[in-house]
């Protein structure tokens, strides 16, 4: 491995969490009409850009490739990543991918990563800590298992020296430092950095960057291996939870603390 890095950042196009989100249809799938680049993936992109810039950026031969799997509109997540600073984009799209669960998604992403790696080894795959729609955090771990690469998940700091990666990873009971040899799959938390916004220069520069569109056939998979047929889980029913309604609201005039305790007593919560 040389001084430069070839990094793939996984970016997902997800329904905007600022709006109400809905499940519908025979597969209880999510309505993707108001979608954006998953905000948690911006931390992964920022981490990639910082690693690249510390080594001289794209000019010095570092690559930050934004890869998104999703319907036509997911190209917007790729485009946004290019505006923020990724050097190139890859959009994996195919009608048969719709309805993929984590197992099928990780299968397809692993095949796409191998496809990209055929033109020069990938040093690092960076992901967000969770997708804001699936919320499972299964994909990074399943991807590492499928690619046979070290898994460094929930990294709150990340450093690379030569081919050694060092990261911190916190659990409730412990703070740990972990080390792995590249190539590796790393997911980062929202504690790792402050993602940048695209600026005017970035938006202009993005127009000149390449986006490669890949189909299932390009990555050597069959339609039965992905989508609903390739998924190992199915959602059989989905019920909206009744929305919470506002209860009693009072303004403190000196005894609200006592009223709070009265409320707890009335609800038998003391």
């Amino acid at each position, binding site marked *: 491995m040389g001084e430069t890095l070839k990094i793939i950042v996984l970016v997902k196009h997800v329904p905007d*969490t600022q709006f*109400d989100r809905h*499940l519908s249809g025979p597969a*209880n799938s*999510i309505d993707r009409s108001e979608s954006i680049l998953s905000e*948690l993936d911006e931390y992964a992109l920022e981490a990639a850009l910082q690693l690249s810039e510390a080594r001289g950026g794209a000019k010095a031969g570092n690559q930050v490739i934004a890869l998104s799997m999703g319907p036509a509109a997911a190209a917007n997540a790729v485009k946004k990543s290019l505006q923020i600073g990724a050097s190139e984009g890859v959009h994996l799209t195919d009608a048969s991918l719709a309805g993929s*669960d*984590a*197992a099928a998604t*990780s299968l397809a992403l692993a095949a796409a990563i191998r496809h990209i790696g055929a033109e020069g080894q990938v040093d690092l795959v960076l992901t967000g*800590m969770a997708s*804001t729609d699936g*919320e499972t*955090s*299964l994909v990074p*771990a*399943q991807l*590492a*298992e*499928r690619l*046979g*690469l*070290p*898994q460094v*998940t*929930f990294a709150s700091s990340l450093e690379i020296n030569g081919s050694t990666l060092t*990261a911190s990873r*916190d*659990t*409730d*009971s*412990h*703070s*740990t430092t*972990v*080390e*792995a040899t590249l190539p590796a799959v790393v997911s980062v*938390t929202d504690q790792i950095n402050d993602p940048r916004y695209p600026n005017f220069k970035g938006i202009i520069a993005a127009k000149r960057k390449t986006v490669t569109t890949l189909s299932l056939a390009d990555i050597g998979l069959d339609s039965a291996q992905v989508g609903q047929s390739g998924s*190992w*889980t199915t*959602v*059989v029913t*989905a*019920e*909206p939870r009744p929305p*919470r309604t*506002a209860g009693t*609201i*009072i*303004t*403190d005039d000196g*005894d*609200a*603390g*006592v009223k*709070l*305790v009265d409320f*707890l007593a009335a609800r038998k*919560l*003391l």
Partner: protein
Amino acid sequence: MEKVLVFIDSPADSLKKTSQELLTLAQSMGQPVAAVAGDLSPAVRSELGSYGVGSIVVAADARLADFVVAPKAAFLASAATASGATVVLVENSPEGKEIAARTGIRLNAGVITDVVSVDADGTAHKSVLAGSYTTAARVSTAMTVLTVKANTVTVRAVGGGEPETVTVDVPADSFTSAARITSRTGKTASGRPELTDARVVVAGGRGVDGDFEPIELLADALGGAVGASRAATDAGWISHDAQVGQTGKTVSPELYISAGISGAIQQKAGMQTAKIIIAVNKDADSPVFEIADFGIVGDLHTVLPQAAAEIRKRQG
């Protein structure tokens, strides 16, 4: 009867409550079997027997805890195959979900996370999209891997004999391609209940303005845990472990008291399935009041200490 394998990670001298819950669930689904990573003490062995476990699978390798999850998952998959289990149950912690994720790939098994209950036919129930939907999901594979949330099962031991022990090898490839843990520092325990298990959570946000004492006073009066918004953890007023929300913990306590928190969508994502929500905020237009069962427009620095004192007074 179907064999249901429960993963138990590095038990100390007794089983954690979450492990006891998984074992109780396993009894209701079939014949419980345990896969224990790390040392197995005689006390834990007997305790497993008391949950009806007839057979315990252990690893022929003492290094499982030195790596990031891959060897644990490889062990669990081997244990499932060796024991003939068709269902694997794992706790719903971040690490538990990752172990389940990789075990699923090794076993070609569907994985369902965040499970709150399981029907007799294997259908698993969970909530999704930040608590706005409840779904029922099934796996279509021969084997099933479920991660089950804490506090969803009432622990019940049935009594039983001493289990037998079966040792399995851990596939070598799971070590060679794993990240190594090079240092581990324990965090000091607060003495309060675990945030994700607590019956009561009192959470503070930017409105505490650097001083969590009013939050802690009320939490302690109620025997609850302390939570926080990201604004409070980002400011360094309290550890990130206390963060509730999309990028923190998801809690579903009986009672959530939100103080000095505006109620942003990412905060609601972690707490809106609480049974009762009380909000204290000095701004009457704060969105948190839209989801509060009881709201107080006021200053948390006076309301919370007054409530804590009143609770102490009534408790005598």
